[in-house]
């Protein structure tokens, strides 16, 4: 299949099979899919798996800041030259997402990274412990959030 056919197929899967998703062709080989709720994530990922539409290449987080009061989780699926990105909007207060590890076991480290860096709770992880942050990192501080301010002294070790 060429790029256009792959994009068309991804559009069919994400737009017609699932309600209220909107898609946008950001570049000729990249399709962004906005999911209406986080509940749609598991069905749409299962459908992408069944249709053999790519592999989960990365999970990205996006903090839109305190004014927008929103966060985003982006799931990038790659098929040959085409990338399909599932985007889920989340509230900044207590965001949570279902885990994909039942469908894609290798998603677990990516989800754990998203959890510790952005504070997005992932439900259904086999091991929800920290993965990359150091052992003495303070609880409830998420370094990739917009309101995180790295000072001259490390977090939790400020000399007052």
């Amino acid at each position, binding site marked *: 299949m060429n790029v256009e056919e792959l994009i068309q197929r991804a559009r069919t899967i994400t737009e017609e099979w699932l309600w209220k998703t909107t898609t946008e062709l950001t570049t000729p080989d990249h399709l962004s899919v906005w999911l209406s709720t986080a509940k749609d994530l598991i069905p749409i990922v299962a459908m992408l798996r069944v249709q053999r539409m790519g592999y989960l290449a990365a999970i990205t987080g996006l903090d839109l800041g305190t004014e927008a009061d929103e966060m985003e989780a982006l799931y990038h699926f790659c098929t040959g030259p085409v990338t399909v990105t599932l985007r889920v909007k989340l509230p900044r207060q207590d965001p949570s997402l279902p885990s994909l590890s039942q469908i894609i076991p290798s998603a677990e480290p990516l989800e754990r990274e998203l959890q510790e860096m952005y504070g997005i709770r992932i439900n259904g992880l086999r091991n929800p412990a920290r993965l990359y*942050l*150091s052992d*003495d990192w303070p609880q409830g501080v998420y*370094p990739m959030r917009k309101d*995180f301010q*790295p000072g001259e002294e*490390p977090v939790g070790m400020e000399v007052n």
Partner: protein
Amino acid sequence: MGNIQYPWKHTLDTLRTWARVNSPWVLHFNSGSCNGCDIEILATITPRYDLERFGIKLQGSPRHADVLLCTGPVTRQARERLVRIYEIMHEPKFVVAIGSCALSGGAFRGCYNVMGGIDKVIPVDAYIPGCPPRPEAIINGVVALLGSLQTPPAGQSLELDDRSNRLPEVPA
């Protein structure tokens, strides 16, 4: 006064310093480096630069090492390990910070998981700047450190006399 209490002390100290200056064993520790400086250290030990002509030998255990070569900024996770390695080494011990990151944190300064340079965590005796420093710079820094051992700073009991070996000249 040491000579009165313990007549062999002076001779033994001289011997010890002679041995230390002529054959320092170095331990290399990477506390978060990008491996650029580590590769330069390895290049320094190769026969082309031949650090062994100064008696310098890379040593695996901190218990046997005299000099700690540190590369990279100190990450939060590596801090405890660096301090532990420094404490395992026995006195007198010397720390050489190699590369911009080890000096100040470099490109990683201000990052959420970085403490800063090596001297934020343990005392440093010699600084070798560069990103990465050339093997000649590393040799120069280490030899400068060894030279400073022959005229020890106050507080360190390195007794020496004029008969102690002088270091060989660093090649240009």
